[in-house]
């Protein structure tokens, strides 16, 4: 520890930031804690997970994680953005509801009514909603959760962040022309070869279309990419059908999996779980999110 580092930080010069957590799992906050280089470069003014401060003060940067699930989430969100120069939506939940978006399916939505007998709790909204349904966002940081490196990129220099177009390009596994699986193994099935492309091994990996920047921790660890970072810049302003077509083309050229099997798997709920954010990206009732605003 050097003398210089031991000197007290000068408040006035450090940019101030706050972290508002809506309905989520705190995984984004935990990831941010591992990006602790910010400790030297920013003043953290509000983040209830780690600090006893109960209101968002005026800040340079506001990070928002979690989806909008309750009336209280709406209130906190709308109050907080008024205090911020720059608003960053972090994590898949803030962008699209994340896995909790599965609760928006019609077949399970009714079950949430059973929770409505409670009186002294925040009311649930009919559906989980992304933050930009309510407030304007300056930067989107997708990922479930975004890696510590991505957090530092978003805080320090989003434009200068060096990333490949797709997860596939960051993965480093060898693609083999002559290794074509006849059937899909799904996502998880036993031992995985540590060197060879997961598609060659029959896994339903969507890293070929998923936005790069995470450095492919899942596929490197032998788990197919489930697309938590959303679509790459090529697909981001197009509809979910364009994404689906791209994946299908990849599997056509790299595997011998029958068309129907591929189609059924791609449209299965299990894929939809993680890939719903693609369909969300193309806008729905709101304009598409411009790729310049997505890290």
């Amino acid at each position, binding site marked *: 520890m050097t003398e210089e580092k031991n000197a007290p930080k000068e408040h006035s010069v450090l940019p101030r930031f706050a972290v508002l*957590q809506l309905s989520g799992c705190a995984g984004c906050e935990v990831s941010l804690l591992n990006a602790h280089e910010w400790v030297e470069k920013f003043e953290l003014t509000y983040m209830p997970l*780690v*600090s006893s401060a109960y209101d968002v003060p005026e800040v340079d940067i506001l990070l928002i994680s979690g989806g909008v699930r309750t009336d209280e989430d709406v209130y906190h969100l709308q109050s907080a953005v008024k205090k911020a120069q720059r608003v960053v939506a972090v994590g898949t939940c803030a962008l699209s509801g994340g896995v909790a978006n*599965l609760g928006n399916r019609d077949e*399970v939505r009714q079950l949430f009514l059973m929770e409505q007998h409670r009186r002294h709790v925040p009311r649930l909204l009919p559906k989980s909603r992304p933050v930009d349904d309510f407030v304007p966002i300056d930067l989107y940081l997708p990922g479930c959760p975004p890696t510590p490196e991505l957090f530092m990129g978003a805080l320090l220099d989003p434009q200068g962040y060096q990333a490949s177009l797709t997860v596939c390009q960051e993965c480093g596994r060898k693609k083999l022309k002559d290794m074509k699986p006849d059937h899909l193994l799904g996502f*998880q099935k*036993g*031992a995985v070869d540590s060197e060879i492309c997961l598609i060659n091994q029959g896994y339903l990996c969507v890293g070929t279309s998923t936005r790069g920047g995470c450095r492919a921790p899942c596929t490197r660890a032998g788990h197919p990419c489930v697309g938590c970072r959303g679509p790459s810049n090529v697909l981001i302003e197009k509809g979910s059908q364009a994404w689906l077509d791209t994946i299908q083309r990849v599997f056509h050229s790299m595997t011998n999996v029958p068309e129907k099997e591929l189609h059924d798997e791609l449209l299965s709920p299990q894929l939809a779980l993680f890939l719903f954010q693609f369909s969300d990206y193309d806008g729905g009732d709101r304009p598409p999110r411009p790729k310049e605003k997505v890290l």
Partner: protein
Amino acid sequence: MTTLTFPLSRIEGHAQVEIEVQQGKVLSTRFKATELRGFDIFVQGVPAEQMPVIVPRICGVCSTAHHVAAVKTLEDAFGVTPPPLASRIRSLLLLGQLLQNQATSLFIFTMPDRVGAESLFEMDEIDQDHAVRFQISRNALKVRELGTDLITLAGGQFIHPVRAVVGGVNAGIPAERAAAMLKRLEEGLPLACELFDTYWELTQRMKDRIGSWGDDSPAYYITSTGRVKPDYNSHEIRVMAPSGECCEIFSPRSFREILEFSQSDYSYATKTSYKGGVIRANSLARANMTAHMGTKVANGYLHRLRIEFGTPAHPIMLFDLGRGIELVYAIERAMQILEQPLEGEDTEVAYTPHDGDGYGMVEAPRGPLIHHYVIEKNKIAKAEFIIPTVHNMRAIERALQVVAERYIQKDQVDLELERAVGRVVRAFDPCIACATH
């Protein structure tokens, strides 16, 4: 009647405490969990084999515990037993989770209470002793990172790990990576001990200031860790009576016959009772219900705790000290596992998925975590998540009643109450994202 509301911070998730007072008499203390995503509802209809990837998202702090519990639940349903190497790697994952969690709870959540700071990140800015405190916060983050790196090593990534699969794990751990981690843990152990010694001393000073270790009457305790030494990749649950006698041993499959669950209209979290009584899970339950730590340094700390407080011990702040013992244990035990080869054997066994009913359990940092899935046509027909924080709900409210009565008099409220509420809740280290899921 007056209602005092205390927003909570430095815990996982959204919760608050409400205390109702009438003419100086405390009518009720409520611990309110104020969020809900509905995992048990929305996983209905999803493919069963996807659960190990979906359920870690219940909580970013406890994701590893849910990941391993989900895999064990499916293995129970499919009748699969993972090979020994896979169990060792899963144990390593759970130790990483323990190390990460106990470091977070000790240093990020509760250390600021001991030095009168709002957060660990401002501790280096306080003029008095600032150099010392700066060192504490930097070292605390370093020790915590050992836990997240251990999860990354064994689980692929540290927040929502991916490497436990039905039938085992998807790969072993290469010797050179294991050796590098081992070296870092060796270096980290003295640092962790030093931090815990400081923490214990500061806790003692806090006790001297407030005059109590956190009085509350004895309670039942619940854990699934080993009887002789700790085991977080656990299989049986035990309940200990307030007197210290073991009064119940059961498998996760029979949890509904043994434990009682109730709902309230002021919280999205359920509450557990045992024979109508208050029950406690988490570190103090384990400290009271395991004979030894099984590692040298941690065992020394457990011995010290028992000499000072007897066994079973009940004061609330001992939950915090129990976490420090486990912080040290997690490092020592992970070192033992990393000294053995973690590759070159089978990492998984083949299995055939089929419909059925499975129960899986781990001892999470907050206590026994049970998952239960009913699988029909390879999809989840029903899912239950029995969360350790839920077991502590009544214990938290009762402990809040004790501090409320201590600091609320007939004609005044001592503002120490605000700090006391935070201390009591944080001692139980509740996880609201898990409790409501």
